[in-house]
């Protein structure tokens, strides 16, 4: 009897020392990123992504059919306009393969940005009723798009194979470029979603931004149509690095001359990381007022 008492007492003491302590007070200035909090809530992140994906594919077969058809229809349209009518050069690669290799990562990026920038406002119900690192909201929106991406990617490989293009060893670096694309999408989404809480106009602005961005990114055209001395300007757009990286990794040896020199990739990656890091700090610093305003 005494032993059990002793044991339960020990338990209590242990429980006591285990207890996490939370201090609540006003925070000012630059907030700590607290990425460990994001890690601690990884299961919730998983469920948020899972929810988005699940809801999107609830309409079963037809849903997936659309995910396959949509990029193909777009591709057909762009092929007719840019490849046939405008005769945009594609550096010796069949135009559809050339365009699609960039269109797939671009579509992912555009979709992720569109969904993530409104995610906080759409998720207002969660934000005002439960505590969790708010970063999870845009992050899950960005990650949820990866399922669409995976399906489109399978279609992309099929298109490449139909042109007898077999990706070479370069494809091993593709995950790196995908990660680059995800982080770019996340960086801009953090800025836009946090701003959208304060200024609802952002929501109306995003489609316009995406459209303009699309023209500024070498999706339908190659970087090589610009004089070499001018290409660094293109590289200021991180998505240039992403789509050209995809082309290089997939079309490899069959896409000569158009690869960006390493310095230009460095600029793209640098800008992307800059946006991501500033985005995280901006997001974290505005996060404390989200629940009051959203």
């Amino acid at each position, binding site marked *: 009897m005494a032993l059990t008492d002793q044991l339960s007492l020990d338990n209590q003491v242990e429980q006591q020392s285990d207890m996490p302590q939370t201090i609540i007070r006003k925070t000012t200035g630059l907030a700590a990123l607290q990425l460990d909090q994001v890690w601690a809530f990884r299961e919730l992140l998983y469920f948020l992504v899972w929810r988005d994906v699940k809801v999107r594919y609830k309409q079963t077969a037809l849903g997936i059919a659309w995910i396959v058809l949509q990029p193909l229809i777009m591709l057909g349209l762009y092929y007719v306009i840019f490849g046939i009518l405008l005769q945009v050069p594609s550096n010796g690669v069949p135009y559809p393969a050339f365009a699609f290799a960039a269109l797939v990562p671009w579509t992912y990026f555009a979709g992720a940005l569109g969904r993530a920038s409104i995610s906080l406002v759409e998720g207002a119900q*969660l934000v005002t009723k439960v505590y969790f690192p708010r970063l999870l909201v845009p992050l899950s929106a960005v990650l949820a798009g990866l399922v669409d991406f995976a399906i489109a990617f399978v279609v992309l490989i099929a298109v490449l194979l139909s042109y007898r293009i077999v990706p070479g060893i370069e494809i091993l670096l593709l995950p790196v470029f995908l990660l680059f694309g995800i982080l770019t999408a996340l960086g801009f989404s953090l800025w836009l979603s946090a701003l959208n809480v304060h200024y609802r106009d952002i929501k109306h602005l995003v489609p316009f931004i995406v459209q303009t961005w699309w023209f500024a990114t070498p999706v339908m055209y190659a970087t090589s149509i610009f004089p070499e001395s001018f290409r660094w300007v293109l590289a200021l757009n991180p998505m240039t690095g992403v789509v050209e990286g995809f082309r290089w990794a997939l079309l490899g040896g069959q896409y000569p001359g158009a690869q960006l020199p390493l310095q230009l990739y460095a600029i793209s990656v640098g800008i992307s990381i800059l946006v991501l890091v500033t985005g995280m700090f901006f997001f974290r610093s505005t996060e404390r007022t989200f629940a009051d305003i959203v």
Partner: protein
Amino acid sequence: MTALAVNVDNIGKKFEIGAARSSNDTLRDALVNVIKSPLKRLQGNAQSNTDDFWALRNISFDVKHGEVIGLVGRNGAGKSTLLKILSRITEPTEGRAVINGRIGSLLEVGTGFHPELTGRENIFLNGAILGMRRTEITRKFDEIVAFAEIEKFLDTPVKRYSSGMYVRLAFAVAAHLEPEILLVDEVLAVGDAAFQKKCLGKMSDVAGEGRTVLFVSHNMTAVQSLCHRAVWLEGGGVREIGSAQKIVQGYLQTAAVSTAEQVWEDPDTAPGDDKVRLQSVRVVPQDGVAFDDINVNTPVDLQFAFHNYQADVELNFSLIIHNLEDVCIMNVVSPPQRFAKGLVNGVCHIPAGLLNDATYRVRLLVVQDTSVALLDAPDILMFEVQDVEREGNWYGKWPGAVRPTLDWTVDYRG
């Protein structure tokens, strides 16, 4: 256990009303609260855009481990804001709070429920949102399903659920949350009476397990039966802290609580004796007006139902209406009538254009043979009548205990 579970030290939260006007939900709540609070009547309609509004100020109290604390107060007193601060949803403007232990908060049932997902899927999603681990949800899954009584519909999208099923499922998930410190906001006011009873039972289980609970409710019976102590908030400050019993009594005495209805499921706890026992009382605004929107032009029905335990008896009823200053506005008496044993329903119609804008408390008397009061139930209902925009150029407070619309005859005898 030495450390306190919760230590709240001088917490304050300021909203900038001007900035808040833009659009939003949470602050809309805050604004609505401001408008509804009696403060507005003192200030008139002026709402400067630069006004700062302190939803909470100088709040300090401690909660020991294992204590169940009730937070009571009128709408707009700051209860929900306080819970949101302690749940880390929003930051305080000043002061600090220290919480020792894993926090779980339940400010709403069914947060994050998605209508397209099935009951099974929503259990996992909602559980994760409330902070449960996946293994924890899996372990309690059957228990949750059984509590919600939705076994057959587990794989049906919740959009096809009846509202009752939906609420049951949502509460069931929340009820199986097992943090060391639980913050609960008015979530028991959901579902039908039977389910509410079940929820209250679950709450008292939780309280009995020695967990620390902070509990916001307008249900004074629940506060009294579940809580050890209570904190009474008023106008953003602490008015009093004490035993739940004492605080609830004090709070009810000021009768600063709107009561649209009261239902006594269990006759043993209802006001009355072996001759008559109340079953329910209700304020029912007519013309489709919501309870919170009653104004001087709204006809209002006061309904009551009671069990008559006497075989053949002559009864009549008296409704006495007081304002908050304890001035009796009127005593409305019904004609006597004979009743057999059983349930009796009664309604008193208050026409539009009779009551002035004020908050009214209702007292019900059941009288036998127009001489013996069998039942005298004070403060069973309370409702607020708001002013309306008037034509003309005068906007001051309308004087008078009542504001009847009467017929006038005015002749010019020039």
